[in-house]
C-alpha cells in the first residue's frame, strides 16, 4: 500500500487554509451529527432515509472540500472524484431498476415467492411438531404475516420438508487442505437434561434420516461413538471429531466431507445450543 504514497508527481501547493475554517467545519460536523441522530426519532416513513442521506452528503462534502483540500487543489482531483461517483451512481441506478421492476409485467416474477415458500414451510413444520423447539418464533406465522393474496397464482403446494436426498451423486472432489491436527479430547461429560432436549431435536431436525445411532452406515456416517473418533476426510487428511468439527459440520456441512460419503447434507437452521444438545444426546447412547 505504501508504494504509491511516494507520489512525488503531486507537486506542492502552498495554499494554507486559515485555522478558523477548520474549526468552523469541525463545529458544523458535530452539529450535523446531532441533527441526524435527533431527526431519526421522528418517523416520516420513506423520507427518513432521504433526510439521513441528505445530511450525510452535506457532512461528506464539507469534509471533502475543506479537510481534503478539494476546493483548493487543481480541478483534476475533483474531476476524478466525481468521475468515480458517477460510476457508483451507474451501478446503483441500473441494479435497482432491475430489482424494482421485476414484477411489473408479470407479478409472479417478483421477489416475493421466497417469503411465501418459507412461510409455507414454517407453517408446515409448525403443524407437524406440536412441541416446537425454541428456535421457531412464538406467534403462529400464518395470520398476521402479510402473505399478499391478490391475483397471484394459487400458492404452490408446499413441498414436503427436506426429503432425504435422492440417490446421492458421488462425484470426485478434492477438498481444501485439512484442518490442523488437534490433541484428542477427554471423555465427554454428558448432561442428562441437554441429552433429553437433544433426543427431540435429533428427530425434528431429521438427523435420523441420514445418520444412524446403532453404527450402521447410511447416507451419512453413524453417530455411535463419534466423539473423539479420528475421521478420514475425502482428500485423505484426518480430523479428530471435537466440538469445533461438530459445529462446523452442522453449519457448513460441505466444508469437510468424510471419505466416500456424498456432500449431500443440507444446510439446516440449527443453533449452537441445539447442536450441543444433540451432541450430549448422541454421547449419552
Amino acid at each position: 500500500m505504501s508504494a504509491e504514497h511516494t507520489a512525488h508527481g503531486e507537486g506542492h501547493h502552498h495554499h494554507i487554509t486559515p485555522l478558523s475554517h477548520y474549526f468552523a467545519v469541525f463545529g458544523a460536523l458535530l452539529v450535523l451529527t446531532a441533527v441526524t441522530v435527533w431527526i431519526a426519532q421522528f418517523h416520516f416513513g420513506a423520507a427518513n432515509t432521504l433526510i439521513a442521506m441528505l445530511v450525510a452528503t452535506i457532512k461528506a462534502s464539507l469534509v471533502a472540500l475543506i479537510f481534503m483540500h478539494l476546493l483548493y487543489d487543481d480541478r483534476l482531483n475533483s474531476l476524478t472524484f466525481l468521475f468515480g461517483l458517477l460510476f457508483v451512481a451507474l451501478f446503483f441506478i441500473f441494479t435497482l431498476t432491475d430489482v424494482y421492476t421485476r414484477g411489473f409485467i408479470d407479478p409472479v416474477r417478483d421477489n416475493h415467492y421466497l417469503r411465501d415458500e418459507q412461510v409455507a414451510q414454517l407453517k408446515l413444520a409448525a403443524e407437524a411438531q406440536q412441541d416446537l423447539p425454541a428456535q421457531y418464533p412464538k406467534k403462529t406465522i400464518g395470520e398476521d404475516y402479510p402473505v399478499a393474496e391478490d391475483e397471484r397464482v394459487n400458492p404452490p403446494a408446499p413441498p414436503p420438508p427436506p426429503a432425504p436426498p435422492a440417490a446421492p451423486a458421488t462425484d470426485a472432489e478434492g477438498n481444501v487442505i485439512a484442518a490442523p491436527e488437534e490433541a484428542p479430547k477427554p471423555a465427554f461429560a454428558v448432561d442428562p437434561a441437554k441429552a433429553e432436549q437433544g433426543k427431540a431435536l435429533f428427530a425434528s431436525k431429521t438427523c435420523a434420516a441420514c445418520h444412524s445411532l446403532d453404527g450402521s452406515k447410511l447416507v451419512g456416517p453413524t453417530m455411535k461413538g463419534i466423539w473423539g473418533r479420528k475421521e478420514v476426510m475425502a482428500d485423505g487428511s484426518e480430523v479428530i471429531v471435537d466440538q469445533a468439527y461438530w459445529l462446523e459440520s452442522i453449519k457448513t456441512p460441505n466444508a469437510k466431507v468424510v471419505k466416500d460419503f456424498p456432500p449431500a447434507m443440507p444446510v439446516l437452521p440449527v443453533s449452537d445450543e441445539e447442536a450441543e444438545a444433540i451432541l450430549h444426546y448422541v454421547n449419552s447412547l
Partner: protein
Amino acid sequence: MASGSEGGFWLPPQGSTAAGGVDGLFDFIYWLNVFFFVLITGAVVYFVMKYKRKSDDQLATSQVGHNTLMEATWTFVPLILVIVIFAWGFRTYLNLTVAPEGAYQVKVTGQKWSWNFTHPDGTVNTGELHVPANRPVKLLLSSRDVIHSFFVPDFRIKQDAVPGRYTTAWFQAKAAGEHQVFCTEYCGKDHSAMLAKVLVLSEEEFDAGKWKVSKPPEGMSVADWGGDLYNKVGCKACHSVDGSKLVGPSFKGLFGREEKIQGQDPVMVDENYLRESIMDPQAKIVEGFAPAMPSYKGQLDDAKIDAIIEYIKTLK
C-alpha cells in the same frame, strides 16, 4: 434461408407460433450483417491489392486524414439501423415472454440434473412435459438447488430457473410432435445430461388424459421401472435391497412379511400397507425405526407407486 417448419441451415424447425417472429428478426440482422461484412472485407481486400507496395521506398499516394461527410454517414447510418433493430427486438421479446391470459399453466422445477413438471391437477412427470397443441402454455419456472435454464430450441424460448423465486416463459405449440429441452445454465457434473422432452399432444388426446398415467419408458417392464424409480426418487438412501438395516427397513423379503408396528398390533405387508406407508409414512412405523420418512404425496402418482410395489415384490 428462413426456416419453415422443417428448419433451415441456421435455425431449428419452428415449433411455436412466436418462433416465426424471432426467425424474421434473425434473418433481417443476418442479411444486414452479410451486407456489411462483404462491404468491409471487400474494401480491405481491394485496398490491399490496389495499393500493394511494389518498391521499397514507394510512398502513400494520398495523406487525406479527415472527411467529415463520410465519417458522419458511417456514424449515423449504423445508429439508425441499430435503433430499428432494437425496437423490433424489444417487441419480439415482449411477444416471446409475456404469456396471454388464461394460458394452461405448468409448474416446472429444475433440480440437479432433472426437470419435474407439475400440472394444475397435481400430476407430476419427470423429464416429460405433456402439453396440448394450439393452446398457450405458461411455464412457472423455479429450481430446488442451483440456477438451471429451460431452453427449447424449437420454440426459441429460454428462461433461467432461479432458486428462491419464480420466472415465467410461455409458448403455443403449432402441431403435435416432440421437442428437445436443454439446460443452458451450468449446473454441475451432469449439466449436459439434464435433458427433457416436450410432448405436444392433439387437443383430444391431451384432454383424454391417458398421458396422465405415467407409463414405463418403452422396453422396460413395470418392475424394472420400479427399480429405476427406487434409485431416482430417494428410497435407496434409507431402504436397502440386500437386507441390511438402514434408516428404514430393508425391502428384501419385505412383501408378505409380518411387521411389528409401534403402539399397534402387527400387520401383514401388502399393497395397501406399502401404498399407505409411501403416502403417509407416520401412520404405521415399524418397531425400532425412527419416524424419519417424508411423505411422497404429490410426487408419485399411482402408476409409479404400483411400479415400486412390483419392484419390492421381486426382492425375495
